[in-house]
């Protein structure tokens, strides 16, 4: 016996996999699909046939998602702009001056000093080239797999930072300057994880914009 609800639920899974968001617009799309099925069954079609016909008429999920992405692009751009300004401000007005001051104020041996400088260069490089970094990432079209890898990387980054900080700050007695460098190293570990996650997402976007 054909189960219409199960059929619709499987259609939803396909839509979600393509990246159609829930509840908006997926709920609206489902309402439309149900309306189509209802009309066809009312005209005497079997539910299974009616669902297949309605799904076909509705169109494929990927091109649909590509259209929705175009709509979202504008609001997405403002969001990206705000994030960019925020990151720039925090880095160039807060983190960088703190470091320069630390280097100037406290004595450190060459190892600590070069660790600090390496971190600053790495961080500045990441921030300035953020948009271009995604070309180094592979395109993973499967959304679920991409997000699993990305989120795991981000979680590992945060966990790595926490472990590193706990280890280094609790087990060594550091001078003020060394603490600042250690915190910077911890933040770098975290940003690598976050960077992998963001890079994978950006790479995936690149693939949809070139094929759209």
């Amino acid at each position, binding site marked *: 016996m054909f189960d219409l609800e199960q059929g619709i639920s499987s259609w939803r899974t396909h839509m979600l996999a393509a990246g159609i968001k829930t509840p908006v617009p997926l709920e*609206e799309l489902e*309402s439309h699909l149900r309306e189509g099925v209802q009309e066809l069954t009312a005209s005497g079609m079997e539910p299974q046939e009616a669902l297949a016909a309605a799904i076909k008429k*509705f169109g494929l999920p990927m091109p649909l998602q590509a*259209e929705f992405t*175009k*709509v979202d692009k504008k*609001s997405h751009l403002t969001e990206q702009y705000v994030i960019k300004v925020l990151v720039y401000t925090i880095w160039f007005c807060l983190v960088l001056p703190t470091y320069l001051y630390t280097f100037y104020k406290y004595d450190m041996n060459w190892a600590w000093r070069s660790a600090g400088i390496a971190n600053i260069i790495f961080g500045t490089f990441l921030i300035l080239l953020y948009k271009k970094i995604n070309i180094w990432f592979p395109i993973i079209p499967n959304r679920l797999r991409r997000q699993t890898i990305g989120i795991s990387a981000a979680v590992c980054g945060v966990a790595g930072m926490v472990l590193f900080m706990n280890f280094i700050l609790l087990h060594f007695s550091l001078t003020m300057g060394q603490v600042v460098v250690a915190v910077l190293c911890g933040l770098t570990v975290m940003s690598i994880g976050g960077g992998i996650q963001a890079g994978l997402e950006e790479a995936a976007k690149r693939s949809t914009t070139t094929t759209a």
Partner: protein
Amino acid sequence: MYSVPMIRKELVAASAEPLILSLLAKGESYGYAIIQEVKLRSEGKLQWTDGMLYPVLHRMENRGLIKARWGESETGRKRKYYSLKKDGKTAMAKHHEQWSLVHSVLAGLKKEQYV
């Protein structure tokens, strides 16, 4: 069978916004009904892939041409109803003006061919 050709997709895409605006000018409506009405009025020659209507509706909503509200169908199912906003009316008037212009140029040229 090939009687009157279906309208090609570029034209379907270009006419989506003016058609939606003009339909909503008659009163609020929802996705499924909009598609049915366009199909009926064009005798099935103007056909959208059903799903593709929604990105268009959402874009128009983002641009402030139309507004949406959730309501219920006669059978109690959730439905999103759209209606025209003030900017939508202005946009509709502009569309009509432009489409009339294209139409009159085309009609004028066609007439000359038969003189």
